[in-house]
């Protein structure tokens, strides 16, 4: 079992960049363009790894630690994630809290690396990066309360592996749709997608995440990009398991069902990105609050069923 978990872990790391390219393809489709090849992210990573770096004279060691710690956080997080219903490498009671706080650690270092450059643009991005996820964390916690109340268990494995998502649907019912939407909003916010942030432009004043990494280059930048692909994969997996909770027991079938589901999540993100504009910065908080409200109502509604 352990071998299988590790294989899936490694597999997830390998395929994560591929899925992110799907979003680009969808956006290109909406723009009437051909778009970059689906393997574009691998090419970018290899290109970056071949290069050297230029460091700002303002920076310190923290600037170099930033990409490493945030990548390390995401790599560790994936070890607790059940991929395609397979049990994760590690699991313990309350691991999800560790996971969320580990993502917080990654954020701390991304922000610290941005502040290290003394650039006003990066400071601006850092301030926004510190601001919006606050509410995301609260709504994620609200979702966890719901899951915990449904199952009485408190780890990712017991909610997302095997047929567990089906059990969640059976006990929670339709309010779980709210949870899916809420998680999708969290996905968009945490991964710097439209309508919270725009990953396509490098125009500093409109940006959050992209502007924070302006000064990184070469292998350091490759690590940041790689980390971002996997973070998106983490959230997408959670949603994919919820929208496609089936599990047949045949590994091949399960994996392809899961791949289809996760593809749907990425396509949905791509469509959102194509048909929406970015919100004005002061509207973003309200958008993120929506996810908290949805999660909250879902929990209140399910209280009825459990009694």
């Amino acid at each position, binding site marked *: 079992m352990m071998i299988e978990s590790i294989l899936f872990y490694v597999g997830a790391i390998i395929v994560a960049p591929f899925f992110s390219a799907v979003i680009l393809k969808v956006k290109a489709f909406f723009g009437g363009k051909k778009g970059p090849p689906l393997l574009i992210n691998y090419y970018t990573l290899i290109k970056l790894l071949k290069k050297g770096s230029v460091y700002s004279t303002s920076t310190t060691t923290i600037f170099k630690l930033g990409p490493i710690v945030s990548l390390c956080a995401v790599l560790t997080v994936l070890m607790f994630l059940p991929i395609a219903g397979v049990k994760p490498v590690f699991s313990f009671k309350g691991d999800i809290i560790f996971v969320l706080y580990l993502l917080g650690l990654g954020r701390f270092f991304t922000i610290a690396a941005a502040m290290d450059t003394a650039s006003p643009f990066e400071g601006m991005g850092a301030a926004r990066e510190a601001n919006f996820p606050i509410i995301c964390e*609260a709504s994620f916690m609200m979702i966890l309360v719901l899951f915990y109340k449904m199952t009485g268990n408190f780890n990712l494995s017991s909610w997302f592996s095997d047929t567990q998502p089906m059990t969640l649907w059976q006990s929670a019912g339709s309010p779980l749709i709210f949870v899916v939407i809420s998680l999708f909003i969290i996905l968009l916010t945490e991964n710097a997608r439209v309508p919270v942030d725009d990953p396509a432009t490098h125009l500093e004043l409109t940006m959050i995440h992209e502007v924070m990494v302006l000064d990184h280059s070469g292998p350091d930048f490759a690590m940041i990009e790689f980390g971002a692909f996997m973070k998106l994969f983490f959230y997408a997996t959670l949603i994919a398991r919820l929208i496609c909770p089936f599990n047949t027991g045949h590994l091949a079938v399960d994996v392809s069902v899961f791949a289809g589901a996760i593809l749907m999540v990425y396509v949905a993100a791509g469509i959102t990105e194509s048909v929406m504009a970015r919100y004005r910065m002061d509207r973003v908080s309200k958008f993120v609050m929506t996810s908290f409200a949805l999660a909250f109502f879902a929990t209140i509604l399910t209280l009825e069923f459990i009694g």
Partner: protein
Amino acid sequence: MNLFYMSFLILFSGGILALVGQRNFALMKMLSVVSLATGCLSGLIASAQALWQEKVFQFSFTYLNHFELSYKIDSLSAFFLVVIFLISMIAVIYSYHYMDHSENALATSVHYFFFSLLIISMALVVTADNIITFMLSWEIMSLSSFFLVIFDYGKAENRKAGYLYFIFSHIGAMFIFAAFGVVYGYTSQFGFNGMAGLPDTVKMIVFVLAFIGFGSKAGVFPFHVWLPHAHPAAPSHISAVMSGVMIKTGIYGILRVYSLLDYHVSVLGMIVLVAGVISGILGVVYALGQHDLKRLLAYSSVENVGIILIGIGIGMIGVATGNPLMAILGFSGGLLHVLNHSIFKSLLFMGAGMVLHKTGTRAIDRLGGLLKRMRITGATFLIGSLAISGLPPFNGFVGEFFIYLGAFNGTLFGNTAFVAGVLAVVSLAVIGGLALACFTKVMGVVFQGEPRSRAAADKDETGNTMLFAMMILASFCIIIGVLPGIFIQMTLKGLSSVSMGYGRIPLEPFIQMTENITLAAVVFLMVLLVLLAMRTLAYRGKPVGRKGTWGCGFTQPTPKMQYTGSSYSASIVEFFRPVAPFQEHHPPVEGRFPEKTIYHSRIDDIAERHMTTIIVRPVMWMFDRLRWIQHGDIHLYIGYIFLAIVVLLFFV
């Protein structure tokens, strides 16, 4: 037990030595630092032993033929003693190089005297076993810390902070007196033991009164107003002891009264929890809005006391709703956060002290780029910031993790526990996010980037004992974060003397949880090592250059263009505007070649603002009316005394 006597003796003699030897500054400092540190060390060893063996020590003697002074060290006292002696010892070590103004010899020696009194009185507070002893120690503690706050009494601002502290600590003490007065009225004895036998409504009143009194010492919103004034005024190691340890005696008081009353209803837990939630969120919002480094840290203490109270509240509700797991998790998480906060908050205050010592300013927006020259200060401050933001694998995470587990556990049982659990979970998440924003601001603006003023440019760190103290504390942050097992055991042992109606608390399930944290932290560190190695490989033989920061095409950047602390926090504070009124002041920019302009922003503390209008003004008005009583005529004053005695005779 002998070790305890010895430690008090050494501590007190250290204080006396400081007073006697002020002629020779270097010798006086050396002697008092050594004896205070030795005293703390022996106290630490003694209390750690007492905690580990769970032995109860008792001791009493009669004072003035009337009052019995009695002391008792049970495991809860021992836990707080460990915290008190540990942090005080490190603060004393730090002070050796911090107090280096020999022209200030008199003030320095007096400071060491009161410092020794403060340590002794804190230790006496947590061991006092009857009302008289407790209040006596409590007053000594308040007074000695008052004299430490006005150490730099030349500045009007510091004197004002001192007076504010003096008033608040006495109003707080009055509430505690009132609580104990009610107890005495029913039991007619000074001992604590009769408290469990009070009628329920009386217990409720006693708890609420005591909570207000102890809460004002602990810095619970809205009784925290003195804290952000007094803590920055004191020398930095004293701020460290006050913020790290002294306010925890308030927490001790709440726990002790709760334990003595032995009264388990959800209402009390809810009061504590809600107070914790409000202090936690507002504390960190106000911290985020501060421009003064030490004031920011002081507000962050309000936040952390909030987290501790959330833990205790969850614990109390757990007991009241018959849910032992929730209770133990909440209490032990709260207690562990007492230890954790004392460690990282004193670390941060010491780092701030180093910055203040070298640059001469506490204004965050005048600093910057200090990390390049102050490597140890910067690195330890970074560790402290990570720990206080509750991030793994540092110690702040462990306490919060336990409180989270307790709160989540509560959501499974009944309405009260559910509401409490959800409230605690959501507010802990919000507090965590805000704390992260707050401390990335401090790190980013004070230590990173480029210096924003001459004061911050080219400043080195010196003072070996200061660096040593910070390194010790930083290593504690990591040790507790990676290996929390033994420290959770400490809290569980400490809890064993809090009456919750349980027998022995089983250790295994909780040890299991700490092992999980250890496992996860080790996995994280392993991955980090692998990545570091891979990064080194990836950069082998690659060209690595150094150039100015990319200015997006702008070629003449200056350090003034950096994001400041105020701009960093503006959008977050804006979100909380109803509770944190945000004011800015700047003249409009006019003309084609605008002249130099100013910008000023601040956020108001609503507790402070309303206290002035609701309480202070009416009280001032009332006393203004009563001014005729004070006429300066000595005969009439004697008449007052006579009259008072006669009137009293009728009642007694």
